[in-house]
């Protein structure tokens, strides 16, 4: 395990919370380095899901019986817990969605379709995830708006001079990743929010790779919207969140209609429920929402500052180890620059998928492909990259296993 230092994570104890980490394949222990895709789930979160189904499973907001009241309170309080975790004022500003992509689509359809028109501009970045890039491309096609992209520099940062040129009076929305899922870059989202607001534009921050591994305060950033996913932060799949400033959410049209989002219905019309329920149509993600709140409490107990240090430390160690080899190309900010807990790289001319297949023999799980950032990969001049990404239970020793296993790929493809 990692050498203990003041404020460092107690990784040995954390690992005991994650049952899946006990898995072995032909006697080889799993080395799970695909956390930017999805993180593993601690027993506490699994128990929260079990407890819900075993003791108080009921539909929320419509039953007057005991189980429904218990489920409703737990589900509502889950909003408060998650809201507080990211610095939102309260549940009115925190909508549960399916994932970050759905949060993005919610804003695109409920706000973008109604607010954008010909001559308007949506400013994205070249490192944007398909979740935002494709969504705004399509909304632009429907509304006549134009999508523009802030350039990414050679060292994997956003070109802020270019951003200052792009963001102007025609800009209606800026949508930017907080942490790049491909490069690991931590973007200056508060500065970009200032820039957007100076031109009366809104800013949407995709925090899918930030909320899991660093302290996030949506009010300090002054984000108008901020989105993230539960399954990348020790929570279950099927749940994500959208933070939105209350005044903006109140002015917005609903995204989906039906069920929980309605107050009064006649044959002619309907009125909408209060926030956040106005944006949670139908029976919501009750078990997942409650479990996400449990995950948030689990992470909060460990401490987000310590998690951020741990993630950066593992990423820096990986960059240092990879730098020992002439045949490795890494992407993103250079060693020494703080980054999220991930490193994308290529081994010589070996295709990332071949590398991942070979690493699988060593029970090493990494991601290989385009990481849902095809245009960025085009710009980097590669079709695919391998990506090792870390979480609270990963160790330097596991990164050493990854580095050693790559020798096999070298031999095969030499």
């Amino acid at each position: 395990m990692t050498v203990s230092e003041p404020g460092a994570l107690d990784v040995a104890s954390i690992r005991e919370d994650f049952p899946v980490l006990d898995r072995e394949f032909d006697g080889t222990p799993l080395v799970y380095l695909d956390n930017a895709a999805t993180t593993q789930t601690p027993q506490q979160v699994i128990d929260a899901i079990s407890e819900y189904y075993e003791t108080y499973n009921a539909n929320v907001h419509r039953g007057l019986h005991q189980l429904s009241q218990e489920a409703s309170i737990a589900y509502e309080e889950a909003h408060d817990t998650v809201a507080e975790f990211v610095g939102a004022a309260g549940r009115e500003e925190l909508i549960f969605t399916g994932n970050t992509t759905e949060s993005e689509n919610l804003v695109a359809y409920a706000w973008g379709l109604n607010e954008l028109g010909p001559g308007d501009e949506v400013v994205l970045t070249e490192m944007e995830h398909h979740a935002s890039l494709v969504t705004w491309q399509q909304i632009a096609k429907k509304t006549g708006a134009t999508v523009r992209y802030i350039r990414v520099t050679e060292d994997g940062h956003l070109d802020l001079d270019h951003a200052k040129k792009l963001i102007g009076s025609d800009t209606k929305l800026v949508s930017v990743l907080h942490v790049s899922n491909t490069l690991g870059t931590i973007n200056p989202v508060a500065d970009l929010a200032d820039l957007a607001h100076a031109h009366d534009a809104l800013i949407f921050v995709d925090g899918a790779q930030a909320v899991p591994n660093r302290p996030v305060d949506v009010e300090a950033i002054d984000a108008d919207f901020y989105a993230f996913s539960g399954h990348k932060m020790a929570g279950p799949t099927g749940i994500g969140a959208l933070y939105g400033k209350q005044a903006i959410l109140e002015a917005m049209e609903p995204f989906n209609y039906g069920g929980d989002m309605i107050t009064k219905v006649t044959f002619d019309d309907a009125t909408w429920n209060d926030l956040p329920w106005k944006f949670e149509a139908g029976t919501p993600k009750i078990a997942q929402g409650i479990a996400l709140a449990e995950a948030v409490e689990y992470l909060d107990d460990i401490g987000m500052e310590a998690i951020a240090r741990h993630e950066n430390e593992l990423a820096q160690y990986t960059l240092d180890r990879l730098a020992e080899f002439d045949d490795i190309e890494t992407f993103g900010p250079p060693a020494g620059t703080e980054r999220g807990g991930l490193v994308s790289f290529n081994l010589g001319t070996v295709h990332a998928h071949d590398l991942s297949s070979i690493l699988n023999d060593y029970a090493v799980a990494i991601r290989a492909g385009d990481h849902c950032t095809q245009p960025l990969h085009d710009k980097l001049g590669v079709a695919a990259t391998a990506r090792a990404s870390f979480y609270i239970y990963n160790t330097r020793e596991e990164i050493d296993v990854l580095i050693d296993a790559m020798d096999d790929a070298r031999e095969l493809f030499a």
Partner: protein
Amino acid sequence: MIGFAAERFSAGIANLDVPMGIGGSDMYRQQILDHYKNPRNYGEIEDATFTHVGENPMCGDTIEMDVVLDDDEETIEAIAFQGDGCAISQASASMLSKRLEGMTIEELETMDRDDVIDMLGVDISPMRVKCAVLAEKVAQDGAEIYFGEKDLEETTTEDDDPE
């Protein structure tokens, strides 16, 4: 995660049913590596009867095939391919190009993914089948387009069911 998650870890495959080794270096037997490193029929044929391209954009695998038919347009006389991508896709294209020499168009059209996997001679993990069959699909689509049975710009096997 549009599409990609489904590609890598298909929900249809129970985790415990996937034996380790499949998808690992077992896929990279000598024959595969030999064809990958020394592809046969690599290049282009300028006066080909038909040319067709295929791409799996999420993998980054590309294959372009030039095929020369005999005067009766029944039999493949010569074939060349160019491409870029993973070892499985490129070795499969190389081996297929050897297999197709002298084959009739009718025989080409009856080939399926099992024939390709037999040809490769290794277990291909479910997630990599689309890499293995790209070349075969390019050849088949190229022929069908040439004979007016299909209208298609570019072939892909990425939207195929991975199983």
